[in-house]
C-alpha cells in the first residue's frame, strides 16, 4: 500500500556522494577490519532463547549488527494436501524487514535463503520423531550486517532446540571471506561486497559432521583447506556458546 505510494513518488536515499573504496589491503599482510577485529576473530555473539512467546520455540541472535529472530511452530498438521509420509516435514521461510539494509528495499532474494536454511537443518532433525506433521521454521532478519545466512542457521537450530524438536545435534554455521591473500572470518556486509571468494560451513560440532558447505568465487586448494579449518574451529566454539545458552535457559527458574 505505502510501498506503491513510495514508488510513485520516486524517492531516493541521500548518499555522501563518494564512491566506496575497496579496503586498502592488497599488499599489506594485516588489513584493518571496519570494526577493528582481528582477521580470525568472530564478532561477539549474543544468543537468547524464548524471544517470541506465542511460538513453540524461538531464539534471538545478534552478531554485531546482524540481528535475527527465529520462531518455530509445531509439530503441527501439514497444511497443504500432501502425500502421506512416515517422516515429518520441515518448512522454512526467511524474510527481511524493509529497514534491514542500509538503503530501503534493497533486501536480498529470500527464496534461495529459505531453501538453503531448509537444507542446512534437514540433516540435523530427527524427522521420524514427528511423522505426518510439519515443523515450521520462520526467520525474520531485523538488521542485515553481513554473514546473514550463517547467523540465521545457527539461530534456527537454537529455536528448534528451544521448541523441543528432536535433533541429532545443534547446528552451528560460520562463513569466511577471501579478500586478496587474506581470510576473514565472520565477514560484515562491507567485507562481503569486496570479497573474491566465500566459504560457508554448517556443521554439527559434537558429531563432527557437516550438513552444508558452499564455496563461491576464486579459491586455491590450500586456501580452501585453511578456510575450512578456520570455519570448523569457529563452529565448535559457536556450538559451545549455543549449548551454554540452552543450559542457562533450562536452569533458569520458570515462572
Amino acid at each position, binding site marked *: 500500500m505505502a510501498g506503491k505510494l513510495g514508488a510513485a513518488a520516486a524517492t531516493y536515499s541521500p548518499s555522501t556522494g563518494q564512491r566506496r573504496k575497496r579496503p586498502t589491503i592488497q599488499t599489506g599482510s594485516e588489513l584493518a577490519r571496519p570494526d577493528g577485529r582481528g582477521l580470525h576473530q568472530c564478532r561477539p555473539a549474543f544468543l537468547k532463547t524464548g524471544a517470541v512467546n506465542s511460538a513453540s520455540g524461538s531464539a534471538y541472535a545478534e552478531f554485531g549488527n546482524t540481528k535475527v529472530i527465529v520462531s518455530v511452530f509445531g509439530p503441527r498438521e501439514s497444511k497443504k494436501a500432501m502425500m502421506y509420509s512416515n517422516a515429518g516435514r520441515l518448512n522454512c521461510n526467511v524474510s527481511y524487514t524493509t529497514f534491514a539494509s542500509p538503503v530501503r528495499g534493497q533486501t536480498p532474494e529470500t527464496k534461495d535463503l529459505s531453501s538453503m536454511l531448509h537444507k542446512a537443518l534437514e540433516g540435523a532433525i530427527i524427522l521420524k520423531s514427528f511423522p505426518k506433521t510439519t515443523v515450521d521454521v520462520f526467520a525474520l532478519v*531485523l538488521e542485515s550486517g553481513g554473514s546473514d545466512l550463517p547467523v540465521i542457521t545457527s539461530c534456527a537450530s537454537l529455536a528448534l532446540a528451544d521448541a523441543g524438536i528432536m535433533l541429532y545435534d545443534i547446528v552451528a554455521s560460520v562463513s569466511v571471506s577471501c579478500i586478496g591473500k587474506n581470510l576473514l572470518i565472520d565477514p560484515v556486509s562491507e567485507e562481503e561486497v569486496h570479497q573474491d571468494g566465500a566459504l560457508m560451513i554448517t556443521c554439527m560440532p559434537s558429531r563432527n559432521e557437516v550438513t552444508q558447505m558452499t564455496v563461491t568465487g576464486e579459491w586455491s586448494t590450500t586456501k580452501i583447506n585453511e578456510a575450512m579449518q578456520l570455519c570448523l574451529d569457529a563452529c565448535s566454539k559457536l556450538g559451545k556458546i549455543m549449548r551454554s545458552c540452552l543450559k542457562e535457559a533450562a536452569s533458569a527458574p520458570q515462572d
Partner: protein
Amino acid sequence: MAAASGTNDLSSEMELDAFRRLFPLSFHERHLLESIRPDGRPLGRARDTSLSLGAVASANGSALAKIGCTTMLAAIKLEVMTPTVEAPDEGCIAIDFHMPPICSPLIRPGRPAEVAPVISKQLSDTILSSGTIDLKELCLVSGKAAWMAYLDIYCLDADGALFDAALLSAVAAFSHLQIPVVSLNDDGRIVLVSEENGGSMKEKEPVNKEKIKLKMNSQPFSLTCILHKNYILADPISEEESIMETYLTVVLDTNYQLVSLNKPGGPGLASTSSIQDCIALAQKRVKELQQILSEAISDMEVD
C-alpha cells in the same frame, strides 16, 4: 496459578486446563465475577509496558515497544522526494504495519493476516490526523526536495492489543528520529554532509542545519478495552480478544483530547456510560505511557 494453591493432586490442575479449553467463556466469566482476570490483573489495569529507543542501527529512528508479551519494532527511514505541486513545502509519511509469520501461529508465509492492513490504515489515520507531526517540518528546499519518512512497524510477538503497541512504538520511533544534515549539490540532488570531511571546501552549505530532531506536537496514545456484558477489560491478551469479541479503542493525545474512537462492530453494543468509562481508563493510561516514553528518552540521552 492452580499449582500454587495446592500440591495435593495433579488431577485438579488437569481439570482446570480442560475447563479453560472447553468452556473458555464461562472460565473467563467466573474470573470476572471475582473482579480478576486469569493472568491476575484487575479488570482496568494494563500489562507491564517497556520501551527502548534506537534498536535498529540502520534506521534514522527506531523503537521497540513491549506491552506484556506483545512486541512491536518500529523503524523510520528517511528518503528524499520531490514535493507535490499542491503542497510544495510539505514532506510525506508512509506508514506500513507488518505481521511476519514469526509473530503468531495463525500466520503463514504468503498469506498475510487480515488484521494487518486494517491496523496499518488505522495507524496512518491516527498519526496523520492528530497533527503530531507538522509535514512542513519535513521540507528541505521548497518545491524541490522534502523528506519522505517510511515508517515500518513489525509485530514480533502478537498477544493482543496490537494497535496500542504499534502506536506506542510508532510515537517512540518519531521521538527517536534524528534527521541527518544534508546539502544540495550542483545536480540538484540532496547529499549527506559527512562529519569526517566537514572541512572540504567543495561542499555546499547544509540546507537544514537546525533541524536535527523532529518537533512533535501533542502525541497520541491509545488504550483498547473489551466490552463484555457489564465488564470493561483494559488491554486484552489475545485469548481474551478471541473469546469476547466486542472491543473499543480510544486514542487520546497528551492534553487528553480525543483523537479517535473506534468500535469495529462486534456482538455487544456500547452504552454511553461504558464509553465514558473507557475514556477515563484511557486517560489514566496516557499518563502512564507518557511517563514511560519520557523515561525511555532520558535513558537514551544518558547512554
